[in-house]
């Protein structure tokens, strides 16, 4: 069975499709969305996650870190393969590659986690099948998410096929950024696509996510044409992509999908900012605050006024 890098398997997930679900989060994503909630999912490989403030305290007390975290020196400044991070006024540096997982236990400050685990389809499915009777009772199932799960296409396909063999309802949570051929290939094994729609304006899309929306829109059209069930998931970030124009865009796209099941608004939450720091990729959205209730009500009213049905917060 195919191997893959999983960064989390979340059971009793209630927000990634209908019913009680198990969401399999895969590592790797070609997009770099500014608001990313799961920055630890971006890299395709295992990586360290550090509590840097603890690291600073630890290093200052004279410890030598087994995982290679150290204060940056002049000679480190040009190293591109290492991560640099500011914490408590110090510049830290460490290697990307996970060399020694036992340091998670040996770290005296409990400051290290390893994000990512190599698993094969069988292992993942074994975990997923533990809750099969909850899925049946609640109309739930398995959701494959990421990252962008299509980065690990072969794994996703096998996982979905095997799940279907065991009558598990499947959702694919995707940015839509993958070859159309792959969507065509996987569609028979996916009961419901949770398809992201992030920005209407092409240049804004590229700016916010790092990729063009051309392929994404084409895939959405394709899935719509073949009658795939779709829930459109729209992250809205205050002041970044919640313009009137984008809300109109959402409404227009929603209208054009006959097999649309629902429209979910994913209101921005700033929890990703801290997580990004922990893996050494400071978020560009440091200043943006979590969307408040008033804001959310405003978005909802606008979308309803634009004719959107079955809109809710996901």
């Amino acid at each position, binding site marked *: 069975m195919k191997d893959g890098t999983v960064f989390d398997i*979340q*059971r*009793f*997930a*209630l927000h990634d499709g209908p*019913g*009680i679900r198990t969401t399999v989060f895969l590592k790797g994503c070609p997009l770099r969305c500014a608001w990313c909630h799961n920055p630890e999912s971006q890299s395709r490989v295992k990586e360290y996650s550090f509590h840097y403030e603890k690291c600073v305290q630890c290093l200052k007390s004279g410890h030598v870190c087994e995982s290679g975290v150290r204060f940056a020196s002049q000679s480190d400044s040009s190293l591109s393969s290492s991560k640099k991070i500011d914490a408590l006024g110090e510049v830290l540096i460490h290697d990307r590659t996970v060399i020694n997982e036992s340091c*998670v*236990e*040996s*770290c*005296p400050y*409990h400051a290290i986690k390893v994000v990512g685990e190599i698993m094969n389809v069988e292992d993942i499915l074994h975990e997923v099948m*533990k*809750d099969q*009777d*909850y899925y049946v*009772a*609640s*109309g*739930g199932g398995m959701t494959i998410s990421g990252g962008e799960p299509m980065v690990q296409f072969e794994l996703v396909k096998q996982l979905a096929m095997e799940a279907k063999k065991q009558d598990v309802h499947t959702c694919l949570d995707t940015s839509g950024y993958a070859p159309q051929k792959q969507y065509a290939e996987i569609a028979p094994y996916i009961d419901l696509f949770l398809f992201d729609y992030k920005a209407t304006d092409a240049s804004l899309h590229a700016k916010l996510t790092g990729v063009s929306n051309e392929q994404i829109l084409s895939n959405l059209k394709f899935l719509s044409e073949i009658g795939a069930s779709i829930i459109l998931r729209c992250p809205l970030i205050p002041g970044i992509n919640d313009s009137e124009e984008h809300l109109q865009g959402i409404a227009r796209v929603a209208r054009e999908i006959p097999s649309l099941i629902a429209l979910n608004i994913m209101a921005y939450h700033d929890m990703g900012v801290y997580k990004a720091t922990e893996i050494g990729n400071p978020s560009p959205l440091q200043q943006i605050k979590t969307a408040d209730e008033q804001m959310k009500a405003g978005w909802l009213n606008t979308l309803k006024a634009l004719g959107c049905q079955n809109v809710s917060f996901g």
Partner: protein
Amino acid sequence: MSLNTAIRFTEVYQKYQNEHPAIREIMCLREQFPQSLQPILADDIVAGRYKRELIRFTPHACDELGYCFDEQALRNELDRSGTDESRKQIINDMISFWDTEQTETKVRAAYPLEMAAILPSDNWNSEPGISFPLYRMCGANLDFDTLMQLGIPGMKDVIEKHKQYAETTNGDVIFYEGMLLALDLLSDICLYYAEQAEQLSLTTTNSVRQQQLKEMAVNLNHIHNTKPTTFGEAIQLFWLYSIVSGVRNYGRMDVYLGDFLASDLKTGVLDEGKALQYAQSLWRLIAFTHTIYESRIIIGGMGRRNPSNADTFAMLAMEATRTVLEGEPQLSLRWYNGMDEALLDKAMSCIAEGRTYPILYNDDVNVRAVEEAFALGRHEAEQYVPFGCGEYIIEHRSMGTPSGVINLLKALEVTLHNGIDPITGKKIGISTGEINQFTNFEQLLQAYKTQVEHFVEVTADQEELEYKVVGDNAAYLYSSILYDDCLDNGKSLFAGGVRYLGGTLESYGNINTADSLLAIKECVFEKGDYTLEELVHILDVNFEGYDQALNQLKGVTKFGNDDPRADKMAADVHDHICKFIQIQSERTGLDSYLNVTINNQANTLMGKWTSASADGRKYGQSMSNGNTPSGGSDRKGLTALLNSMATLDPNIHAGVVHNLKCSKELLVEQKEQFRALLKTYFSRGGTQLMVTVVNRSELEQAMIEPDKYTHIFVRVGGFSARFVELSNEVQRDVLSRTLY
């Protein structure tokens, strides 16, 4: 006033000391009642409040046994009696008399030498130890259904017939005479409160209240010599009988009150508002008893003779629980597939409001389990009722008071020190071998089991002995009247009367023990990271200087994550303790002897006297609660937790509790998913669930500003409490549990 009652009680006891226990008891009760009854309060529409006297007969409380006295209060009276030397003498005489004559002392005095050596202390909550005895006869659930149908006069007729038969067959006539006198006393109490209600109605100026008091007087006058015909009369009779009998658990109330309620609603005697007022009044009276750990009311479940009428009462009961903001009664819903969904709906709404009730029981599993564990037929098993902190008995057919506790984690700790308690350095267990002699995990496991078994055997013997002493000393008249088969046998409850004399042993630290054993197995015997001696040293120093070891031990998988390694170990520990307790019935005269993994604060209090354990728990920290993972060690989500909890064999114990802490959002916004979750857990074999709805920041804030958060109730284990009234340790324990 109270001292005078104590003096008279003592005089009467002494006068009848060598008489038949039934006569001595009723004569004492006639001193106790109505003196210890409290006045009707302004919002009572049912009469009956009881307050403990200085010296009393307490049949069924969980904190005292039979004839007992409040020594400290008597000593206070001594200080207050001034210069009256003769009065001082009387008080001193009473203290020394009851010191030896109270039932608890008699039980301890009856211990054979070996039992006294193995169970040297009664101070389970303030001394280190593996096993302790408890002195009480709690959990009686009477046949209120028969009482409701026959009333006082009908019951007297039944007893009279038995008495006549006893006269012709040389039976224990005096036993029946005692019962008849007991019912006379109950009758008098009805009239006592009737008169009080009438008097109050004359002085009140509020016309609504006046009407209520008049109705109360009518109800009381009616039931004193006539069987109840209305809901109000039935509730009143039930409640006064509960008070005089001293029972603190009320059994299948939906069955015995359901017909009265349904009939009154149908004929228009009551409307729903008035019915709710009755229930609310009863709920407040129950709360006034302030038992903390008892006051169970059971609704729903298999084996009800009147399911439709009972459901009507069950809905009313849940509404009373929703609206009367108290920690008691402990409303418990027995559920099975096929019951009216409206009940589950109502239950979930009640829980969602943070009431912690009803506690949910799964009859689809439990009835069968009770058949197995108690070795009974289905018909009787259907009449199981949880009492107190969650122990099962068979309503009005069996007794099963927990008269002992065992701390399994302490047993493991002592085993790791070859019988020595590392806290005191004293030998409190048996020598099971030096740890450097254990060459494989199985040897250690066997040593632990031997240690546990040593204590289980003696607690079983102690339970049997306690029953015997109690049976010799008191007739438990009111309980014997409404307990199978005391009337037929002509014997009192604990002197051969009760159909099934069972017992239970409370075990604590089960999950910590299992998690610790697994950590030792993996880190010492499989991976060889430490020798057992090294590990025990690390525990002895409470992990000081061994951060890495602590992390590693914490990192070993734990129960509650749907991981077969941890769940299997938990199942092994569970199977061992349950089955070894169960087989004690073959050796003793008990009809059953079963494990209960219930909880109160014992996980916290006994945890204080338990050293660091290999699951990463530090010295003195709380042990996990019931069959719930150690705080925060369940990390794989709610389904994983429930799957783990459902793996333990339900067929070998008499009650295991499962705590779950959920956010309000889960029960309100995801109600259907929660319903699916609950039903799936039940279909997988889950026996029971108690749900606290709360959010963490509220609890944290409540610790800082308790005055503002008196409305928050949490399920501690075997009881629910206002969060702000708990000790800091228990608050921290509750906070440490994972919130879903």
